[in-house]
């Protein structure tokens, strides 16, 4: 018995592995709880409608933490990748509708397609952007976000019995028999077949956790963090900093694209304007409040910060003001030296007590 506990402890709760275990447990527990509550009919339809977007935001927040927390690059443009993923998925799903009636299969194909397209965008954007540093990188990612949004805003795409038609800026589609328009410029897409499910979101989070944790605890993960900690030293031991940062960025973009696919296929209408820098900033807030490089923290903060304002709707207009005040308050408190000292003292006392307990037991 003691051996089993020891093994469990080493495998799941030793040192840096705690965060990973907590993340998986949180996600699985949350999923099971929601399913039970749903089956018991205890969730309002409004709350239920928040679940898929929530899973989607958790995925993109983890993806952004890979870029900002682990790779140390401030990206203000991840909503752009999410948008690319969302609209790629909508297009793929729309085009495949007659051929792949199975919704699960279509969702999987759409998501893989979205991951591919957004990782391609990640590479195209990452190659020039990652040469820049600090706040310059931040503004350029924001610029790319706006460019992506503007471009999606100007795409018209549809098909008829004769094939696919696409036009930019002006709607020049001339569709004949069997016409279906998928994208309508600034109006975006409507009549999307909603095929995302909460379970799909749950599985996507698990995959995201697997990818990010396994990456972080492998040689590339160490390289990514080494480049963040000291670029010059990393180069001096033979790490190609630009390549490593690019890899992290592309993986992050691919995951953001998956999140977008899940999000996009959850609504019957979708406008490109949704994916502007305001969304990027919202997700950045989740990441920073959850803790840079802290994935379990990211999950918790995303759940709280997304669900809370939605549940405070009764406060109406005061809702976002309160959110703003809470945000500023949290930043001021967590960075307050007096609070930090108190926290340190308390945690030290707890640790001491635990040691004493251990000593007494032995």
């Amino acid at each position, binding site marked *: 018995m003691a051996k089993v506990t020891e093994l469990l402890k080493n495998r799941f709760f030793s040192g840096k592995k705690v965060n990973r275990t907590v993340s998986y447990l949180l996600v699985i527990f949350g999923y099971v709880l929601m399913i039970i509550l749903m089956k018991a009919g205890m969730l309002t339809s409004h709350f239920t409608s928040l679940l898929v977007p929530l899973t989607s935001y958790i995925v993109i927040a983890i993806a952004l933490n890979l870029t900002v927390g682990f790779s140390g690059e401030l990206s203000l443009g991840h909503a752009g990748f999410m948008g690319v993923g969302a609209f790629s998925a909508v297009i793929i799903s729309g085009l495949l509708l007659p051929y792949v009636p199975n919704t699960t299969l279509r969702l999987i194909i759409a998501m893989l397609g979205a991951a591919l397209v957004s990782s391609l965008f990640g590479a195209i954007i990452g190659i020039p952007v990652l040469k*820049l540093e600090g706040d310059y990188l931040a503004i*350029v990612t924001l610029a790319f976000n706006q*460019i992506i949004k503007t471009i999606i805003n100007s795409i018209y795409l549809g098909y008829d019995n004769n094939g696919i038609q696409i036009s930019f800026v002006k709607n020049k589609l001339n569709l004949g028999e069997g016409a279906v328009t998928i994208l309508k410029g600034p109006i975006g897409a409507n009549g999307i077949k909603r095929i995302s499910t909460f379970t799909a979101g749950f599985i996507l989070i698990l995959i995201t956790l697997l990818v990010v944790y396994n990456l972080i605890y492998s040689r590339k993960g160490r390289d990514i963090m080494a480049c963040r900690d000291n670029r*010059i030293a990393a180069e001096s031991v033979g790490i190609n900093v630009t390549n490593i940062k690019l890899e992290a960025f592309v993986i992050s973009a691919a995951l953001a694209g998956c999140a977008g696919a899940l999000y996009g296929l959850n609504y019957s209408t979708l406008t490109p304007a949704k994916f502007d820098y305001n969304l990027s*900033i919202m997700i950045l807030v989740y990441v920073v409040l959850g803790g840079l490089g802290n994935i379990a923290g990211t999950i918790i903060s995303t759940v709280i910060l997304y669900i809370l304002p939605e549940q405070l709707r009764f406060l109406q207009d005061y809702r976002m003001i309160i959110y703003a005040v809470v945000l500023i308050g949290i*930043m001021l408190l*967590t960075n307050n030296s007096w609070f930090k000292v108190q926290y340190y003292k308390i945690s030290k006392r707890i640790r001491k007590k635990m040691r004493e307990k251990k000593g007494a037991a032995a």
Partner: protein
Amino acid sequence: MTFLQFLITGLSLGSVYAIIALGYTMVYGIAKMLNFAHGDIIMVGAYIAYFAMGKYNLPSFVAVMASVLVCTLLGVVVERLAYKPLRKVSSLSVLITAIGVSYFLQNGAQLLWSSAPKMFTSIIPADTIKLFDGQLTVTYLSIFTIVVTLLIMVGLTLFVTRSKIGKAMRACAEDKDTARLMGINVDTTISITFAIGSGLAAVAAALYASAYQSISPTLGSMPGIKAFTAAVLGGIGSMPGAFLGGLLLGVIETLVKGYLTTQLSDAFVFGILIIILLVKPSGLLGKRYVEKV
């Protein structure tokens, strides 16, 4: 002739960007923070001017001065309450706080003044000058905006290079600890910088709102982002850079809208920013910081 027309419109729009960008760049230079709430100060400025003119019937100059005063105070208060306690912590925390302030101002404005847009009467008579047999129409507002911006730029340059406070500002931008050792009151200097930046935002607000003649609680976000882009384009932290970046951005935006496409103009503006940064990674007039090994 159309080109000249676009050029003047562009310079006028660029002048507004330049004024905002100057505020951005000064605050960045000294506090090393991306002040995301800067755009919302513009919005507040526009509303103050609107009420001063509409409700209290003040002359436009007085209204703008009132708006400058309120924004200056607002800037200092925000800095003292929200940013000052975070001066020694990671810049990301400050960024998030600035985002919080931005949310606060936007939603506060929505609460106080409703989200419905309001008609803004131009602070300058809406007359025009016709040149070349009427082929070229220049509004008074355009001329006024360009002139005001030039005056601000000259005045600010003199202030920063000649005055004692200006020198203190430059010293703090370079190295706060050393500046403190030299007897400079760093806190006051930073507050003054925020005050100037916010005051400039109020001037820009009046000019911007006069051009678009409509104000709403989200008014600040687009000029805020554009000015931010302008500041980076010129080399963030550099005042001539912000001026140049603002003008360039305004002209490019207007030319693209005039000759190519309105819908994709933002893509062009941001695309040019990216291209310039790739060629000159610290902006047109920015200084490159090289880490010593």
